[in-house]
């Protein structure tokens, strides 16, 4: 049954139906509504024996989840931005120990400068933590992904991060269907954990491993991620069969047939992109879009299959790696290794800046005219940057790296 719900409420209700045993979280915008709602539910006794820990930090939150998972309990936490970074050490540990933990990340920028609005800097900064990272395009998908995430985490003994755009999805009200409680129960049977702290069968979890075995342990972690590439679509399929909705999976193509230009992106921006694609298609322009729903592990083969036929790929991403450029773009390039397809990184929507359809139209127009560099910044205020560079006298030797970067970013385009 569709209900008009705020994204956070919908997620909280769904997480509740996944019957977590332990919820440990620390408040941070824009995740707070989720935890507040769950706190009300726990207090109201709606979640049975679920324990809610008001921890003193995100680091403690993830650590408590590690402890809970280690005794076979089903943990949940949610965070964002600085909070995700603050729990970073524990993130790597949870993945290294192979503990099934599900966490919502209400994606938000990372300071300095401090910024509470949406982009993907937080989640992407943890791409090497060993967590599975799923990105939701809509509130409905965010909801559905949590159910799949628990199934995935417990099947593979891996922690799973469900990423949903902060505010854009967490604070928006939309008609959404919260998965039926019984169906969720059926979808999430309790499975015996691969390792558990049990006095009847004591184990030592978290040994110190030296050079003699560390590489192997790491390889096995990689192998698990590769296995996830098979499990994720499989579970998405089972979910579709059980709940009648297509959500999750690795990638989702949109009007790719014969598309010369394909826009790749993650999260809630897909809607705007699709609308622009529709406009252009209606005008006979061969463009398509591809939603990357699973960022880690990287569905390299799927990306290649979907993008190889295109002439160019425009990767619109809400994060960047200063000094390099696109992050998703780099993955896409690896996937297209050896193909003629050109890949353009477009850094957009940082710190909550809207990615308007107008901007997307211009972007795609320039792409089709092959006026798009390898790396560009959507809606960058050239004058402001130029003025600041001039004021600060940042050395930009003609022909030097900085100068070329400026050119690549189209900062001198008008003058050119």
């Amino acid at each position, binding site marked *: 049954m569709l209900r008009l719900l705020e994204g956070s409420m919908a997620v909280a209700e769904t997480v509740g139906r996944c019957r977590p045993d332990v919820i440990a979280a620390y408040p941070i915008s824009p995740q707070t509504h989720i935890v507040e709602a769950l706190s009300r539910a726990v207090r109201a006794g709606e979640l049975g024996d679920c324990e809610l820990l008001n921890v003193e930090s995100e680091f403690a939150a993830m650590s408590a989840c590690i402890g809970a998972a280690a005794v076979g309990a089903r943990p949940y936490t949610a965070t964002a931005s600085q909070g995700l970074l603050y729990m970073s050490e524990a993130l790597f540990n949870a993945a290294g*120990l192979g503990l099934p933990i599900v966490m919502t990340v209400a994606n938000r920028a990372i300071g300095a400068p401090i910024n509470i609005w949406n982009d993907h800097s937080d989640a992407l900064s943890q791409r090497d933590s060993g967590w599975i990272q799923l990105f939701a395009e809509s509130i409905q998908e965010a909801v559905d992904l949590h159910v799949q995430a628990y199934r995935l985490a417990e099947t593979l003994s891996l922690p799973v991060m469900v990423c949903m755009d902060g505010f854009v999805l967490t604070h928006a009200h939309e008609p959404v269907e919260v998965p039926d409680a019984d169906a969720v129960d059926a979808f999430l049977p309790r499975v015996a954990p691969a*390792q*558990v702290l049990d006095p009847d*069968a004591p184990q030592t979890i*978290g040994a110190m491993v030296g050079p003699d075995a560390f590489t192997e342990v790491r390889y096995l972690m990689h192998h698990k991620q590769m296995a996830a590439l098979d499990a994720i679509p499989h579970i998405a399929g089972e979910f579709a069969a059980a709940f009648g909705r297509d959500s999750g999976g690795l990638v989702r193509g949109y009007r790719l047939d014969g598309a010369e230009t394909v826009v790749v992106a993650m999260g809630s921006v897909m809607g705007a992109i699709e609308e622009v694609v529709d406009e252009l298609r209606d005008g006979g322009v061969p463009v398509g879009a591809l939603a990357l729903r699973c960022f880690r592990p990287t569905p390299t083969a799927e990306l290649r299959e979907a993008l190889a036929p295109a002439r160019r790929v425009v990767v619109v991403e809400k994060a960047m790696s200063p000094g390099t450029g696109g992050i998703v773009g780099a993955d896409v390039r690896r996937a297209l290794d050896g193909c003629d397809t050109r890949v353009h990184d477009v850094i957009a929507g940082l710190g909550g800046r809207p990615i308007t359809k107008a901007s997307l139209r211009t972007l795609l127009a320039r792409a089709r005219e092959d006026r798009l560099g390898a790396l560009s910044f959507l809606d960058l205020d050239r004058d402001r940057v130029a003025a600041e560079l001039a004021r600060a006298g940042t050395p930009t030797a003609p022909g030097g790296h900085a100068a070329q970067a400026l050119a690549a970013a189209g900062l001198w385009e008008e003058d050119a």
Partner: protein
Amino acid sequence: MPEPPFAITLKPGSSRANHTGSWRTERPEYVRRAAPCGTACPAGEDPQAWLYHAEEGGYEAAWRRIMADNPLPAVMGRVCYHPCQGACNRAQLDEAVGINAVERFLGDAAIEAGWTPDPPRPATGKRVLVVGAGPAGLSAAYHLVRAGHAVEIHDAEERPGGMMRYGIPRYRLPREVLDAEIERILALGVEVHLGSRVDDLEALMAEGRFDAAFVGVGAQLARRTYIPAGSAARVLDAVSLLRSVEDGDPPLLGRRVAVVGGGDTAFDVARTARRLGATDAIVVYRRTRERMPAHEEEAEQAVEEDVTVRWMSTIDHVDGDRVAVERMELDEEGRLRPTGEIEELRADAVVLATGQECDLGLLERMRGVEVAEGHVRVGAGLMTGRPGVWCGGDVLGREQTVTAAIGHGREAAAAIDGWLAGRHPWASASAPAAEIADFDLLNPWYFGDAPHAVRPRLDHARRVSTFDEVVGGLDADIALYEARRCLSCGSCLACDNCYGLCPDAAVIKLEPGGAYAYAFDLDYCKGCGICARECPVGAIRMVPEEI
């Protein structure tokens, strides 16, 4: 449950596959070190060993452990001047353990309960003559009989016990106690001939009835020091005085008695005089208190009984009841010299307690026996120059105490047994002296604070009027308490420190009854030395590993 992930998760207790013993440069060893009390005991007792049983309330076992060395615990517990307590490590903590009191408690308990010694070993067919039924002779006889030899004691007196009976007043050693312990020895099958003085040992041995002889005739003769005395003066000697008291017809001493001498006997006499009615008993001694040979507690008890002492004084002459006392002084070299200052005191009687001598007439015709300065020379195992003839007790002119005599009897008996058995060396040179558990080898921290329990004393009035025993015994509780004050120096008392404090859990508890309560698991012991350091009794030693 599915297989846990590789390397990250391990099986419990799997580290036992890692033998850390290889890290060791020193290894701990359980050892037995000799407790100072035992090494100090002239009778050859090992108080630590029998206190160990007493601590557990195993009184009979404790008593039997004493009896292995000394057949007269009840006597010992009364007349011994307990050098063991002088050596006791506990004295450095609070006060020495009252070993002597516990021994007396055990001895009395044995008499009361009628415990009997372990039966003798099978008869050897050998026959040994023992001359003298004093502590030396009785001790020798006891050990010889238990070794399976036939023993025949000859003693000149009508009753056995020698100086224990005729030299030690009954207020120190009640006769029923003495009789009980002697009777227990004789009951083992010793043939006693009392009133049978041996004048010629050579002749007696020539009869061929004996395969060996032990002579412990003691020092029965008073040493007379000449004191010019008028006819009216009453001058007696200590030996005959004490003896006459024992025989029941004490001489009339009068109200004032002067005793000459500074040995235990002098004080015995003075105290006896008090009990015989003397109001003033004065001990006159030529040296300082420090140089006095009598044991401190003897002097103390005498003083408690109003005996007075004139130090640095000699009796110049006696005339009737007037005794001229000359004061002595020390010269530059600290030698005594008369001052000529004469002081007079009144005494109805003067008793000379200036030492005793041995009557060695029975050895005069005995070839090979060497006598020098009135004492018999002996070699290993106390055998005289005459093969088959041993001597012990006062006749050796060494420490002249009951305790020493008992020790001689034991040592000689062991030698005789070896000699008769044809063992070589027949005198088992007493086992290689074990390292002594000195105080600094102990870890006294672990011992509770527990002051020495005092024995009750007879009240003053009865002490100066009767011959009742002055020093009382301990009741069971206090005896147990006193026994448990023993630090068990050098011998494991199973306190579990080594077991509990080993960081590597490398100590194994063994079933009770073995040589040691624990063993080291050298597969894991890293040789840190904590066990040795924390052993309260110094029963663990670290020894270098050969690498």
